[in-house]
C-alpha cells in the first residue's frame, strides 16, 4: 500500500532522537525524550508499571503524582499520563490512597446533607485551607464543594464535583482527612437518584417493551436477518435519518 500508510506504535522510540530532558524519579536521574508524558518517559527509562497506571487517558485516577520544578518551592500534583516532562523536575508517584468507604444502601438514603455528614463526619473539620483545590488535577473547586455540602446544597455540590476522577490527591493533602472521592460519589448518586427529575419517556418505553409492543417487529427483523439479508439492506438504506 501507499508509503504514507502509518505504522505507528505507541513506543516513545518513534520520537527519540530530537530533544532530551533530565528528570529525577524518586531521586534517580534519567535522560528522557522531551514531549513525552511522565508515564511514557519513565517507561522509556526502563520502568514497567504494575501500579500507578490504568487508563492512560486521564479518566481512572491511578497515576497520581507529586513533583517540584527546579528553583521552585511549590509542590505540584498531577497525573503521570497527562503531565509532560519538564527539564529538572523531581517526581514521586502515589498509586494508592488509603481510604475506607462507608457502606450504605442507596435505597434507604435521602438527599439530605445531614445523612451525608453522618457517614463522613470529617467533612465538618474542613478548615478552608484550599489545599484540596490546589491539588486537583481536574481543576475542580474542591473546597467550595465541601463548603457547599456543609451548607446543605447537594445538587450544586454534585454538579461541582461531577468531573472528579477519584485520584485521591485532595485527600492526601487535606488536613481535615476528608475522604473526598467516596464522599463525592455519594453526593452524586443522591442527586442522580433523588433530586434530578426522572425521565418519564424512558419509563414509558420500558412499559411498552414489557407489554410486547415491539415483539412482532423485532421477530420479523431477526427472521429477515437470518433468511433475507438483501431485504434488510434495502430497509437499512431507505431508513429515514433524523436531522
Amino acid at each position, binding site marked *: 500500500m501507499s508509503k504514507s500508510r502509518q*505504522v505507528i506504535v505507541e513506543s*516513545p*522510540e518513534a520520537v527519540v532522537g530530537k530533544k532530551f530532558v533530565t528528570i529525577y524519579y524518586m531521586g534517580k536521574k534519567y535522560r528522557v525524550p522531551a514531549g513525552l508524558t511522565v508515564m511514557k518517559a519513565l517507561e522509556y527509562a*526502563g520502568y514497567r508499571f504494575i501500579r500507578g497506571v490504568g487508563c492512560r487517558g*486521564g479518566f481512572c485516577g491511578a497515576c497520581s503524582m507529586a513533583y517540584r520544578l527546579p528553583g521552585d518551592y511549590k509542590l505540584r500534583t498531577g497525573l503521570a499520563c497527562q503531565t509532560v516532562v519538564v527539564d529538572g523536575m523531581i517526581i514521586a508517584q502515589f498509586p494508592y490512597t488509603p481510604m475506607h*468507604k462507608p457502606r450504605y444502601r442507596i435505597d434507604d438514603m435521602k438527599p439530605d446533607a445531614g445523612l451525608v455528614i453522618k457517614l463522613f463526619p470529617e467533612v465538618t473539620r474542613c478548615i478552608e485551607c484550599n489545599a484540596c483545590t490546589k491539588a486537583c488535577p*481536574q481543576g475542580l473547586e474542591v473546597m467550595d464543594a465541601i463548603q457547599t455540602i456543609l451548607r446543605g446544597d447537594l445538587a450544586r455540590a454534585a454538579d461541582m464535583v461531577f468531573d472528579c476522577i477519584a485520584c485521591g490527591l485532595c485527600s492526601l493533602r487535606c488536613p481535615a482527612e476528608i475522604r473526598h472521592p467516596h464522599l463525592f460519589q455519594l453526593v452524586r448518586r443522591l442527586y442522580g437518584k433523588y433530586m434530578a427529575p426522572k425521565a418519564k419517556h424512558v*419509563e414509558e*418505553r420500558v412499559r411498552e417493551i414489557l407489554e410486547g409492543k415491539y415483539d412482532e417487529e423485532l421477530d420479523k427483523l431477526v427472521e429477515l436477518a437470518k433468511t433475507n439479508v438483501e431485504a*434488510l439492506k434495502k430497509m437499512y438504506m431507505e431508513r429515514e435519518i433524523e436531522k
Partner: protein
Amino acid sequence: MIGYPPELRELIKVVEETREERMEQVMKRLSLEERDELVHRWHPDYRKDTKRPLRIGPNKGEIVYNEIADLLEAWPAEDPDEVDLSKIDYDVDVLVIGGGGAAAAATLWAIYSDVEPDNIVIATKLRFGDANTVKAQGGIQAADRPNDSPAIHFLDTFGGGHFANKPELVRALVTDAPFIIKWLEDLGVMFDKTGEGEMIENAGGGASRKRLHAARDYTGLEIMRVMRDEVWNYGVRILEFQPAIELLTDPETGEVSGALLWNMETGEYTIVRSKVTILTTGGFGRLHLAGFPTTNHYGATADGIVMAYRVGANLRDMDSAQFHPTGVAWPEAIVGELITEKCRGLGAHLVNVEGRRFIRELEPRDVVASAIIRECAEGRGVVTPTGRCAVWLDLPLIDIINGPGTIKRYLPAMYRQFMRQGIDITREPVLTYPTLHYQNGGIEIDPYTHVLRPDGSWIKGLLAAGEVTGGVHGKNRLMGNSLLDITVFGRRAGITAAKIVGEKASKPKISLAHVKRYMAELEKLGIPRTRRAPKILPDYRGKHVLERYINILY
C-alpha cells in the same frame, strides 16, 4: 504546554478561512457500495499483511489478526504439572474475571438474583474500574424517544455491523436498552437531562435517531463508578492485581470450574473454584494491531480470548477491529487517545490540509476511519511535527453551531485533555488520525451469555459478556453500543449465573486437563516454547534499556 508551533498555526488559518463556507455544505450520504469500496481500499481490516490463518484450536484455518494468532499459538504461562490444585484458596459460587463495566453489572445482577455477595469473587488485573469502560465518553444508546424504537435501533446496529451481527444478540441489546437506562438512573447515574427530566440525546455515527444518552463526556466513568460503588456497598470480595491466567475444568465433564489467578506483585498463584465463571476481560487494544496506537487502557491484552480458546470456545469476527476515526495525532504526549465521536455528533467537521471536508462525518466508524486514512495516503493530510500524518477536526465549530459554552459544558474531558497540552479547543482545531479502539469480534455467546463451541453447544460453567464477546456488533460497532453491550449482557450473565448456581447442587472438580491437551497440539506444531500467553501487560520499555537487561532477582 506549548500549543501549536508556527508552521501548524499557518495551516490552521486555512481551516478558519474555509469554516463559513463549509457550514453551508451538506455532505452526501454514501451508498452501501461506496462505503464498501472505501473500506476495502483503505481500512486495515482489508490489508493482506495484517492477518493470517490460525494453526490451532477450534477455529483452525480461520483468518485473524497476526497479534491474535501469536497469542493463540502460544504456550501457557504456567506449567500445569507444577500447579498444586489440592488447595483451593477461594471456593465460591460465582467467579467474575475482569474489572470493568460488564464485571460490575454481572456482579450486581447475580446479587439481585439471589447469589450471596460472600459467594462471589471478582478477580481483576489492575484496580476494579481500570477498564475501557471509564474511557467511553460519548454515550450509551437506547431507543426511548417517541420518534425512535428498538426496531430502528436494531436496523442501525445491524447495518453498522455490515449485516454480520448475530441477530438474537442484537435483539437482546436493543430490547433491554431502555430498561438499562432506567436501572442506571435508579442507581443514581447523573445523565444529561433537561429541567423536566427529559434525556438530552445526541446523534452518533451510523445511528438514524438521536439516542445517545450522555453524562457530559464522562459517560463511561459515571456509569462505572456508580456500579462500582454499589458493588463495594455489597462487600463483594475483589482481588485486584490478580488476573486470571488460565481457566480450570472438570476433567470428567469438561465444564469450566474456576480459574488460576496470578498475583502480579508477589508472583504466587491462587486457585478459585466456582460453579460459574463469568469472563468480562475486555478487548485487545494494547496488542497494537497493525502497529496502531490505541485508546484502550493498559490491561487490554485479550487474556479472556486466550483462556476461553483453550477450553474450546468459538471465536468469531476476529478478523475485524475497530479503528476509531478520531484519535489524537498530535501532540505526542497524548497520541492515540480518543477524541469522542460526540464532537462530530455536535457538528465538528473533518477537514483536510486544503480546508475541505471529505466525508459525511457521521458515517459508521470504519467508513470515516477509511476516509481519513485515504486523505493522508493521497497526500491531503497534515504532517505533524513528529512525522505522523493527520487531518483536522474543526472543534470550534461546536460552539459556533450550538452556542458558546457548549464545549466546556458537554465536553469537559476533551477541553481538559487538550488544554493540558496548551491547545484551546474552543478556538483551535485539533489533529486527528484513526486509533485502535475496539475488538468487534470475540467469544461467541448466546443471548443468555453461555459461551458456545463451534458446533453451537454450551461450554458449561462459562459465561461471557462485553468486549471479550463477538456477534453483538458484527464487523463494526456503533458509537454508544459498547456501554450498552456491557450493561445488557453483564446483567444477563449475572442472571444466568444465579440460575446455574441454583441448579448445581455440588461443586465441580478442578483440573488443567484441557491445557495439557492444548500443549500436545502446540508441541505437534512445533510452536517455540518462548512464545507464551496470556500477555497480561504491554511492554513499553526503551530499547536501549532492554538491550542491557539482566534478570537477576528471579
